[in-house]
C-alpha cells in the first residue's frame, strides 16, 4: 500500500479512513472487532490497511490495556490491543469539517492537488 503522507488529504480521499476515524471518535476506544462490527460492509483487508495507515499517520493509536495477557508464538509476541483516536486525529477531523464548509460555500469541487495546497496553507 502506498503511504500518503498528508493526513488531511488522505482523509478527504479515503472514505474508509473517514469512517474508521469517525467510528473511533464517536464510539471511543475499543477493540478492532468492535470497530469492524460498527462498520458493516467494510472488507477486513481494507479495514486492516486503513487502521495501519491511520496509525502510521498519527491519527489513531494502538493501546495495550493494563493487565492484559500475552502469548508467545513462532510469529512473535502477541498482545491484545484496542484502537483509539489521537489528539491529531481529532484535530484533522475538525479541519475536514472546516474544509467541507468552505467547499459548500463556494460550490466548487477542487482537484485534489488544490485541496492539498489549501490544507497546507
Amino acid at each position, binding site marked *: 500500500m502506498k503511504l500518503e503522507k498528508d493526513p488531511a488529504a488522505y482523509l478527504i480521499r479515503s472514505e474508509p479512513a473517514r469512517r474508521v476515524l469517525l467510528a473511533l471518535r464517536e464510539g471511543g476506544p475499543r*477493540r478492532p*472487532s468492535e470497530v469492524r462490527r460498527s462498520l458493516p460492509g467494510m472488507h477486513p483487508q481494507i479495514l486492516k490497511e486503513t*487502521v495501519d495507515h491511520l496509525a*502510521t499517520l498519527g491519527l489513531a*493509536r494502538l493501546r495495550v490495556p493494563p*493487565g492484559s495477557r500475552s502469548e508467545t508464538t513462532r*510469529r512473535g509476541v502477541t*498482545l491484545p490491543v*484496542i484502537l483509539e483516536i489521537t489528539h491529531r486525529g481529532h484535530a484533522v477531523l475538525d479541519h475536514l469539517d472546516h474544509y467541507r464548509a468552505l467547499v459548500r460555500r463556494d460550490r466548487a469541487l477542487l482537484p485534489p492537488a488544490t485541496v492539498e495546497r489549501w490544507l497546507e496553507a
Partner: protein
Amino acid sequence: MSPVLLLGPTRWRAGRSPAVPEEIAKFLPPGWKRRGARGRLWPIDVRAALVGALRSAGVDATLMEAEPDRGTETRTGKFARLVSSRRDLRFFVFWPLRANLAGLVWELGHLAGRMEESRLAGRQVHVFAERGVVELDLDHDRVVFRETGHRTTYFEDLARWGCAIDLWADYEALFESVVAAGTAPP
C-alpha cells in the same frame, strides 16, 4: 508536561546501517557527540535528536547516555536513579527495524522488575514502533511484535503494564508523533 526518559537501542545490527535523514541532526542537543561513523546516525543519535526535539517543544526529556555518571555508579545504578528521579516520569521507547535490541531489552528488563515491585506502577509507557516491528491482527484484536529469536520476556511484560503504540513509516512521522505525544495533555 511530565518529563520523558527516551529508551531504545544504541546501535544497528551488525552489517546494517539504515539511512537516517541528516536533517534530524539539527535537533541533537548542544555538545552531543555523534556515535555513528562515516556520517551515519545510530539509533542512540536518533534518540538524542528526539530528546532535542522534545526539549524544543518545552518537554523535559533526557536519555540515560546523556546524563553524567556519578562517582563509581554502575550502569544499573544509574538507570535505577534516573527512573526513580521523578514520580511522573514517562517512558518513551524508540523501536526501529534492524537495530541491535540488547540495550533495549536490558532497559525493559529493569523497568519490568521495578513495575513488578510496584515502584513504577501507573507510569506511562509509550512505544514508537517502525512499521514492520509490529503487525496488526485485527481478526483476533491483537498486535504481534515480530521480534522472534530475541529475548521476548520483557515484551510480554508490556501487556501487563499496558502501553500505547504509535507506528511510524519515516523519520519525519516519528518526530511528529513523539513531539505530539510529549506535549499532549494527560
